């Protein structure tokens, strides 16, 4: 896939982007917080200074009212000497400096022309230390116009308070920068971890796209969501591999298993034709046989198709809740006379009131297939038992036990596969699809098919076979 913009790989990494996003949000929140703190504290410092300045001005105005301009002048001279923090400037109505610690007023002297007018200002106070260094610091001041038109300016150095606030702000900025750095580093580490986990997944996906269905994602064993996803993908790949393998097998199997009866059918028709042309042979018998062969081919084909459909659907269609006992009893009733006819002892046992969710038709067919098999392989004088019960695990088990020759343990997994027929069964009718269909039905109900030991040797028969069709917990 061509892409127009390629960011450095770390920026295309989702966890890292998330980290950046969170850091940006954090920085914005921290800035807002700082601005608020600054506004509140810096404002408080100014307000306090303004209050002190107002009180000082009131006291000086008192002196002015009692002692006039000269008294005020005297008071100012006195105050500049006693080490107060205030700075003063008294100018006459022409703006000429009369007395005070300031050379020039930070406020325009023309402002507030009427007597009693008051002007506030922030300004920079320049002071020279005894050792000669010049210090500029923030200050607040107020200027008031006196009754005679002169102006009095009183200022207060707030540099100390201000610099304290600035220190706090700097500390918070520093801490913020540290947090952002740590956050970035953490984000890189986390996104690196996630990237590696994703890379493992992606690598497997790429390989699967390339057609290799055998790859699996190694689990880290930490049981996190990546392991969960990996396990899910592995499970999905297992199923995919099985069903694709199954399809391939069906294709091969249909080709193999339909080819021989079709060839047989063709040969028989050809021979019959030759015989009829030569005026001998039983044309009708040949046709009857050919029809039977054709039916056999069709039924094989239908069963293979049914299995393939069940497997590809994943879940059996038309599922409903039903009483497993009723279904089993009906099948038992269908097969009991057949067993009796063949001198096979048929027993049926069912736990009542077992409800199951599933496709009744398919489950009935599965049981019929199991009973067909049992009847086919059990010699007369033997016994077959159909049993329905709830396992201790809650699963519902339909089982068919017979006293036939059984299936050796090493072959039990194999006989469930399509078209697999054991040596001793080749002479009997059937295409080797019965158990495969039962297994497909079980799987389509999230159940399974278990092949077990039969009852063992009984009256020269046996060891028999027990086939259990197990469905998940009854509802």
């Amino acid at each position: 896939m061509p892409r127009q913009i390629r960011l450095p790989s770390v920026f295309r990494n989702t966890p890292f982007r998330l980290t950046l996003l969170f850091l940006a949000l954090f920085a914005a929140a921290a800035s807002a917080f700082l601005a608020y703190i600054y506004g509140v504290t810096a404002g408080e410092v100014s307000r306090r200074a303004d209050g002190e300045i107002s009180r000082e001005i009131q006291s000086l105005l008192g002196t002015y009212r009692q002692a006039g301009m000269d008294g005020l002048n005297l008071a100012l001279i006195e105050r500049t000497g006693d080490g107060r923090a205030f700075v003063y400037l008294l100018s006459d109505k022409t703006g000429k400096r009369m007395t005070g610690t300031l050379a020039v007023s930070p406020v325009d002297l023309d402002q507030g022309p009427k007597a009693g007018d008051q002007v506030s200002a922030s300004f920079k106070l320049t002071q020279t230390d005894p050792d000669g260094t010049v210090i500029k610091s923030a200050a607040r001041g107020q200027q008031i116009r006196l009754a005679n038109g002169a102006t009095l300016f009183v200022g207060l150095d707030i540099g100390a308070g201000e610099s304290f606030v600035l220190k706090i702000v700097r500390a918070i900025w520093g801490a913020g920068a540290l947090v952002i750095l740590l956050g970035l580093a953490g984000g890189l580490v986390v996104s690196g971890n996630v990237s590696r986990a994703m890379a493992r997944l992606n690598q497997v996906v790429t390989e699967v796209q390339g057609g290799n269905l055998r790859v699996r994602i190694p689990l880290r064993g930490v049981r996190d969501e990546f392991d969960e996803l990996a396990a899910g993908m592995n499970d999905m790949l297992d199923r995919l591999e099985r069903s694709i393998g199954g399809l391939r097998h069906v294709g091969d199997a249909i080709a193999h298993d339909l080819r021989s009866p079709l060839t047989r059918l063709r040969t028989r028709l050809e021979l019959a034709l030759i015989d009829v042309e030569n005026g001998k042979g039983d044309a009708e018998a040949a046709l009857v046989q050919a029809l039977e062969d054709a039916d056999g081919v069709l039924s094989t084909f239908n069963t293979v198709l049914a299995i393939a459909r069940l497997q590809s659907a994943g879940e059996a269609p038309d599922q409903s809740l039903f009483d497993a006992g009723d279904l089993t009893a009906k099948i038992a009733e269908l097969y009991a006379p057949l067993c009796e006819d063949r001198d096979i002892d048929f027993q049926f046992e069912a736990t009542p009131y077992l409800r199951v969710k599933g496709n009744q038709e398919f489950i009935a067919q599965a049981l019929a297939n199991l009973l067909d098999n049992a009847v086919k392989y059990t010699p007369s004088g033997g016994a077959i038992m159909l049993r329905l019960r709830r396992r201790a695990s809650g699963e519902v088990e339909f089982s068919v036990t017979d006293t036939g020759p059984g299936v050796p343990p090493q072959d039990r997994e194999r006989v469930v596969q399509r078209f697999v027929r054991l040596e001793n069964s080749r002479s009997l009718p059937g295409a080797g699809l019965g158990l495969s269909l039962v297994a497909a039905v079980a799987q389509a109900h999230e159940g399974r098919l278990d092949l077990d030991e039969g009852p063992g040797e009984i009256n020269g028969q046996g060891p028999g076979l027990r086939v259990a069709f197990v469905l998940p917990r009854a509802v």
Partner: protein
Amino acid sequence: MKILIVEDDLEAAAAMVRGLGEAGLICVHAADGVLGLDAARDGGFDVLVVDRMMPNMDGLSMVEALRQAGDQTPVLFLSALGEIDDRVAGLKAGGDDYLVKPYAFVELSARIEALGRRRDSGGMQTLIKVGDLEMDLISRMVRRQTQEIDLQPREFQLLEYLMRHAGQSVTRTMLLEKVWEYHFDPQTNVIDVHISRLRAKIDKGFDRPMLQTVRGAGYRLDA
């Protein structure tokens, strides 16, 4: 009996017309759903045999249209779609029976015959009589001549179906479908065994057997 065959596969249709004609049925063929609907509306048919997948109008729509117009002629669907839900869809659309392709010809003719005769024996019958065999559907008693016959519930259903279709061939598949309601074919001769039990009960001790085996097809109950 007059049959309308609605089928777009001309070869299959020709084979049906020939085979059913030889069995004594009068067949009319329509090559798609629209033609089929027209022919069916003209009426006079005892059974409609309708393919599900056809050009112009598919079988389901055709039968739905007929049923909406109040036409109750029995319909047998033919289909290559054999899944359970396909069958259910066919019956919901107003079909009376459903046969999956490819089918045996005896199966087709037996089902057509069963559908064609069904109308005659409709209504609320409480007593079915075939020759000297009598079945009381209310008391669930079966009697041949004067002898009472004791039947299991399933045997009773089996005999009821055979009596309702007396004189017609019914296949093993039909019995399994209509009496047991199973739509699969067992690999063993389960139906034959049930029939032979029933036969032992109704024919044993009488000089004339009623329950006949029809070679290559199934069974028939004769009066």
